[in-house]
């Protein structure tokens, strides 16, 4: 049930109706029921994981609140982290681990076949005489990475004493399962959400206006920007390497950069809009990342809730900025590699993370150099965009061989192969980019001028009506 579908509109209308009609004390129950229904709609079996992690970390939180003994508290938070990491490891990374173990066994000529998770689970079911056929897709609950991270942030924050332990299970379960964010984030912190839930759920006029505006803006990014570019990207990136020439691959790479932005940022804005229509504020997840002037800035603007999660729970515990310069580089690099691995269980994602790690380190030098800061801002922005786009080649290819093939074509500047540059798509991208550059500059006030806002809103609504095709593109970050 994606936001831009009729199923969701029907579902959301019922949820809103319920929230409006029920007395305040029942609204959290209603929200939880709706969220579990929404999540279970993808596969009811997945609900088991969501409920399990909700119960587990709720109990850990309660335990942390009740005990002052240091070692018990440490043990409890260790259980919570181990449980979250084990869930992710088992369901998200099992394929990657078995694949690489198998490769290792093969290279050592051990003649051992490493069973996949589906096969192992199948054997367990057979032993229990349960006739149930499992596939790999059934063993990766959607949104697992998101709600696991949310839950971990809660227990760690309770352990640190930065947030209050939640007394009501309903509230905690609602925080994890909150349907606008359960599938693809933002990875909201418990403090922000639970604080709002503890108060009476109320919707003000401005919430409605902001919710509708955010939803329209997100819908535009998804159905006009991302889905339009997706047609081009899929054609080039799903063809055989070498089918298209270097110029086409370059444009497809740029197109993917904007498709991914439109897709994920669009989802986040729609989620924010939906939440706002129910009276909840959630974290801003994207803030014009392609106008960033360095890579630290890029990560302050791209998937903000994830990058702040890694900052607070990986980078700072590693020492953050309070250590020697070379340790800062190492910390940055490790954080980015872990972030890459969070995105997917393939070497290409690790390379992508490492690429960003290297860029972050290099930009630490650059930002301290007078010559670099003398370069016009626009040139620095373009440089960051191009290097980020280069990283997306690994992200989009999902396999190292394929990514390497595309990189070779790109740098050979080969004219061989088909040329395909649907220029109108790039007019669209240029318009969005220029808008963001202006918004990020001193000229922002011009864009906030009421008639300009009305005209843009009209144009955006018109494009949402006119442009979309029949293709019902799912969201890219769904897979993570």
């Amino acid at each position, binding site marked *: 049930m994606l936001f831009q579908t009729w199923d969701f509109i029907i579902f959301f209308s019922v949820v809103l109706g319920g929230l409006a009609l029920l007395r305040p004390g029942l609204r959290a129950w209603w929200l939880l029921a709706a969220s579990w229904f929404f999540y279970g709609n993808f596969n009811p079996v997945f609900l088991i994981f969501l409920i399990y992690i909700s119960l587990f970390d709720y109990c850990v939180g309660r335990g942390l609140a009740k005990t002052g003994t240091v070692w018990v508290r440490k043990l409890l938070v260790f259980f919570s982290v181990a449980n979250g990491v084990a869930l992710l490891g088992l369901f998200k990374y099992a394929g990657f681990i078995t694949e690489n173990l198998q490769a290792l066994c093969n290279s050592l000529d051990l003649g051992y076949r490493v069973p996949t998770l589906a096969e192992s689970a199948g054997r367990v079911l057979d032993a229990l005489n349960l006739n149930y056929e499992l596939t790999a897709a059934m063993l990766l609950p959607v949104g697992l990475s998101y709600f696991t991270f949310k839950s971990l942030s809660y227990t760690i924050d309770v352990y640190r004493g930065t947030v209050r332990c939640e007394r009501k299970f309903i509230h905690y379960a609602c925080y994890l399962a909150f349907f606008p964010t359960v599938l693809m984030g933002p990875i909201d912190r418990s403090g922000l959400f639970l604080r709002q839930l503890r108060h*009476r759920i109320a919707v003000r006029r401005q919430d409605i206006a902001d919710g509708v505006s955010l939803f329209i803006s997100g819908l535009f990014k998804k159905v006009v920007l991302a889905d339009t570019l997706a*047609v*081009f990207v899929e054609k080039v990136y799903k063809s055989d390497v070498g089918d298209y020439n270097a110029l086409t691959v370059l444009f497809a790479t740029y197109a993917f950069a904007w498709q991914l932005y439109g897709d994920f940022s669009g989802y986040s804005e729609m989620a924010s809009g939906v939440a706002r229509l129910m009276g909840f*504020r959630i974290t801003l997840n994207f803030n014009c990342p392609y106008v960033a002037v360095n890579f630290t800035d890029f990560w302050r603007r791209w998937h903000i809730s994830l990058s702040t999660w890694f900052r607070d729970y990986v980078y700072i515990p590693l020492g953050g900025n309070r250590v020697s310069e070379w340790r800062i580089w190492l910390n940055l690099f490790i954080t980015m590699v872990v972030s890459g691995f969070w995105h997917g269980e393939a070497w290409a994602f690790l390379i992508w993370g490492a690429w960003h790690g290297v860029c972050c380190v290099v930009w630490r030098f650059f930002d301290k150099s007078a010559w670099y800061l003398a370069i016009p801002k626009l040139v620095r922005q373009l440089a960051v965009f191009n290097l980020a786009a280069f990283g997306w080649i690994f992200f989009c290819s999902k396999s190292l061989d394929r990514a390497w093939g595309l990189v070779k074509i790109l740098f050979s500047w080969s004219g061989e192969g088909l040329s395909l540059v649907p220029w*109108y798509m790039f007019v669209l991208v240029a318009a969005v980019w220029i808008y963001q550059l202006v918004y990020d500059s001193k000229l922002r006030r011009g864009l906030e001028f009421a008639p300009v806002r009305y005209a*843009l809103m009209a144009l955006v*609504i018109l494009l949402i009506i006119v442009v979309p095709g029949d293709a019902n593109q799912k969201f890219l970050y769904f897979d993570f």
Partner: protein
Amino acid sequence: MSENRKKYRSLKSMPVRCNALYLSFREMVIVIPLVLAAAIWLLPYLWEKSEKFDFQEPDFRISYDLRDDYWSYRQWVDYAAENYDVMFVGDSVVWGMYTDNAHTLSHCYNAQKDEAAAANLGIDGLHPVALEGLMADFGRGLRGKKIYLYFNALWMNSEKFDLTYRPLVDEDGVPEKLTVMHPRLIPQFDRSIEGYGDPLKKRMAAVLERNLPICSLLNHLRGVWYDNKSLAEWMLVNPSSDPLTRPGFYISAVEREHRNRSTPWNKPRAFEVGYDWVPAERSLQLKAFIRAAKLLEERGNEVTVVVGAFNTHMLDERSLEAYGKLVSDAEDRLDDAGLKYLELETLPSESYADASHPLDAGYENMAEQIIQYEEE
């Protein structure tokens, strides 16, 4: 209440957006309805005023390729309502599946009357359930006209055609999907058509197309100018073309293909078929047909149902008997509904191309029978 105020104060500083695409509540209630109204009604209205079709072509019938472009059909209905007194409405028999523009039923009628009185409003594949939808939403221009509404019993020759078929369910519980012609015209949420399995997205798109002019216009533009593709898909096929210069205001909608078929159904040899006719009392198609006829009557039209000259020569004995009962029962229901009808006599065997479509000579014969009925 004070707690709520505190909550809002503390959340107020939290950034929620990354652009200036926002409206206040007051702005929203004015701007969004205005924009939607302009997009949904004004834009199609202006487009309609600017677009020109070749409806004045002699013996015009809407081209086969535009058979599911209901925007164009509506324009043709409106033009025909202004310029003709008699309308032939129906499926491919009226449209003229195996004949050219100059031998259709409407042409033969005009030729025998020696005046351009009748227009051909037929569309291929227009079964009665779709006909009802077409007339309800795209045939509103038909008012105060003489209408010959063609009833083709072929649509009741099996449960599948009649849409009363109960689909089989496979091992995984997925029901068999029935092929429905003109799916956008049938009732989208009518549970009686069990085999109609289009997803909610397509059903809602059909509902919107029938109710919002902009959706109908967009389908029309895609069909006529963008090879039925979305803008993105079309741009991929035509990477160097400018999609904005593509749509024009002149549409050639007339059928240009010569479909004349000289071989009758019984050449080189005749054969017999057996149909499992759906009884009149159970038929969805018959009920929809009567509702469509009543709708046209309610709009001030003089409706005469032309009960088709079905090719009974090819029916086996059992089917022929059942067909006779079906027609008789259908006529009883037309009587009960207060509808006038004319039962055409079966044409000579060599005047048929197949079970229901006449050849050129067949159309001459049918037109003669209709004119004779008028004179009586």
